[in-house]
């Protein structure tokens, strides 16, 4: 019996094997959206928990990676909606080696705050497209929306962000 079949049948060992295979990728994906390691860990566990509870609805012939990423994205989006006012985007996240922050600290804080004030669904699309450089097709699949809807969300996010930054006297 294949791994996904065993998982769909409720085999806990198969579930652990899938968890070990996918946890790093899912954690990384969620962290890109919520930018908070503790929340990302919590949401990673919640993703796998929901996935296990919904295993009967999973088609073993389907794309497991896409399915789990969709669940993770929805949970991350819900987290942003709930925590919109409380969560500050930390500017001290581990950066890719080439990302050398040259903006003054105060300016970075202002930009982070303006970004955090975007509606959650616009923020997710903008984070993944503009900061993380993820392909629009991948974002569309993870959010369960069309390519056009992703482009529209990024466009609206950019427009809102520019307006907020201009009110603060910041012109990128």
């Amino acid at each position: 019996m294949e791994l996904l079949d065993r998982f769909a049948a409720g085999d806990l060992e198969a579930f652990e094997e899938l968890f070990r295979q996918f946890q790093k990728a899912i954690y990384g994906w969620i962290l890109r959206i919520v930018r908070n390691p503790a929340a990302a860990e919590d949401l990673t566990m919640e993703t796998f928990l929901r996935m296990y509870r919904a295993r009967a609805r999973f088609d073993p012939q389907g794309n497991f990676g896409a399915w789990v990423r969709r669940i993770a994205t929805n949970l991350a989006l819900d987290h942003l909606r709930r925590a919109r006012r409380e969560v500050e985007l930390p500017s001290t996240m581990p950066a890719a080696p080439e990302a050398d922050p040259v903006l003054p600290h105060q300016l970075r804080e202002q930009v982070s705050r303006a970004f955090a004030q975007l509606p959650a669904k616009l923020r997710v699309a903008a984070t993944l497209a503009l900061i993380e450089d993820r392909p629009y097709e991948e974002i569309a699949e993870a959010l369960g929306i069309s390519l056009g809807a992703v482009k529209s969300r990024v466009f609206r996010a950019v427009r809102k962000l520019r307006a907020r930054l201009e009110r603060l006297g910041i012109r990128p």
Partner: protein
Amino acid sequence: MKEHDEKPLRDFLKQALPPIGETAPRRDLWPELLRRLEGPRAAVPWFDWVLAAVTLIWLLLFPEAIPVLAYHL
């Protein structure tokens, strides 16, 4: 909006919010996941039910508010 119009904003954002590099959880999440799996399911708080009911009634009374709500969700 053209791709090249976004470029300065992209670069600016990446300086303020650096992209997340290759990363992994700081601890093994499996033991806690297993505990959650074996524990009781969290019940939906009564406040959430009230909120859902109020929202539903509001949308039934003011259906024109649906696009506004959809935009903000």
